[in-house]
């Protein structure tokens, strides 16, 4: 029963006219389902990507399951039927690779950096990372055990700033939620989270964020049943269209 990030989107197979791309789909693809486990922060771009992919591969259905990378890695190692795994960090991908569940070598397809999210009116007048450590500022960050928390820790170390957060959440969505609801004056989240939240929060970029760049790897799962389709999907993500969509969502290029 985890609040916040757990969404799965099942996109209906469109009987759209085939627009064959470079990697033409084999005839046997018809009626096949590709299951993609992707980090929660990828929800917006991957939903769009899956639609394009289905349009390019008529008869193929892409089922998307979004959750925290660590949750997804655990699910896959427990036998969840995933064909593709897109992680928000290299650690969870390495964990899966160590268990012999990754087919080939993972490919990095996106990066993400931290930003400061504040309520639209910015009540604590936050302008820099150092402002977060000012007394009386209610800052919410991710716990060090989760990727965004690890990134936060790195920035703290690099800048020599020690934050005294009012809460260390177990997911970046929970951090964002506390900012959106106005409970917190500021939260450290990913650039893409702020982008997805629209005008409910305001982003205060800070240069120190470059100290902690999160790299997103993607790989086919060895236990998956559609290796060809999985490879095709990875191609689509790392290809031009995929990169365009990811950049539109705020991701960087690795």
């Amino acid at each position: 029963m985890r609040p916040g990030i757990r969404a799965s989107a099942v996109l209906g197979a469109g009987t759209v006219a085939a627009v064959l791309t470079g990697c033409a789909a084999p005839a046997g693809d018809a009626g096949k389902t590709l299951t993609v486990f992707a980090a929660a922060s990828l929800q917006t771009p991957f939903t769009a990507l899956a639609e394009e992919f289905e349009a390019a591969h008529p008869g193929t259905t892409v089922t998307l399951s979004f959750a925290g990378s660590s949750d997804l890695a655990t699910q896959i190692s427990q036998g969840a039927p995933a064909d593709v795994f897109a992680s928000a960090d290299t650690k969870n991908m390495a964990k899966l690779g160590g268990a012999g569940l990754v087919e080939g070598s993972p490919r990095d397809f996106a990066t993400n950096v931290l930003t400061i999210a504040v309520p639209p009116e910015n009540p604590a007048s936050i302008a820099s990372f150092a402002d977060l450590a000012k007394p009386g500022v209610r800052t919410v960050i991710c716990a060090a055990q989760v990727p965004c928390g690890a990134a936060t820790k790195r920035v703290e170390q690099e800048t020599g700033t020690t934050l005294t957060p009012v809460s260390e959440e177990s997911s970046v969505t929970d951090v964002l939620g506390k900012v959106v609801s106005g409970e917190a004056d500021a939260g450290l989240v990913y650039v893409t989270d702020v982008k997805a939240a629209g005008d409910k929060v305001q982003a205060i970029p800070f240069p120190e964020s470059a100290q902690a760049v999160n790299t997103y790897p993607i790989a086919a799962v060895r236990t998956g049943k559609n290796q060809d389709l999985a490879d095709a999907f990875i191609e689509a993500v790392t290809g031009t269209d995929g990169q365009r969509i990811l950049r539109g969502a705020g991701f960087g290029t690795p």
Partner: protein
Amino acid sequence: MYTGIPRWVAAIAAVGALFVLLPLAAMLGRVNWPQFIPLITSESSLTALGLSLRTAAASTVLCVLFGVPLALVLARGDFPGQRLLRSFVLLPLVLPPVVGGIALLYAFGRQGLLGQSLGIAGLQIAFTTTAVILAQTFVALPFLVVSLEGALRSAGSRYESVAATLGARPTTVLRRVTLPLVLPGLASGAVLSFARSLGEFGATLTFAGSLPGVTRTLPLEIYLQRETDADAAVALSLLLVVVAVVVVGLSYRGPAPAGSGGRSARTGTPGRVPA
């Protein structure tokens, strides 16, 4: 002794019991026993356990404080809107805790209905231990009310009527007759509330946040440890199971014993003295 339970009913009951026990047994199988003691006695674990026990105790006190009057009003009162009040009080039983957390946020949060006035008075609730206690009280209160209202209804109001005709003021009746009569129901309600508070997760996560020693209770610690250290998560889960079993086992002994809420003293312990 004849029990009147058909064999197939017993068989289904066995399956039901297994359904509850199997996952717990499976979890036992995954415990890293050599590391178990270090895992549960780590500083973060002890901090979380201590916070959980303190907040659950505090919310149980609040549940008794508010739940006893509520149960009395619901069981003995007769006023318009009584059924509606009961439905609302019992709502957290069926509400997802996250929803409870969101609702609390809009009531006691910084921008909330009461939170704004409280903020002006210099009281901050969000991200404090108080928020944890409020979240736990919100989800645990119905357990006490349901349990106590049932005890009050089965005890009936005849003893109270007699006490009143003997000249006892309503407060005296409550203190010397009603409460002693429903004490077993009150105790089991309080224990259930404590256990529910101990397990509270969703509303706490949404409303209170998660900071070691302040708002990160044992369930939140388990959830976080799960991200990096599965062994720690399993060990702490087992700790929580043991604490819950001990608490419930020690004080909750099922339905109130005969005689405590019986219709008459004579039927309570029959035939000990010849007529």
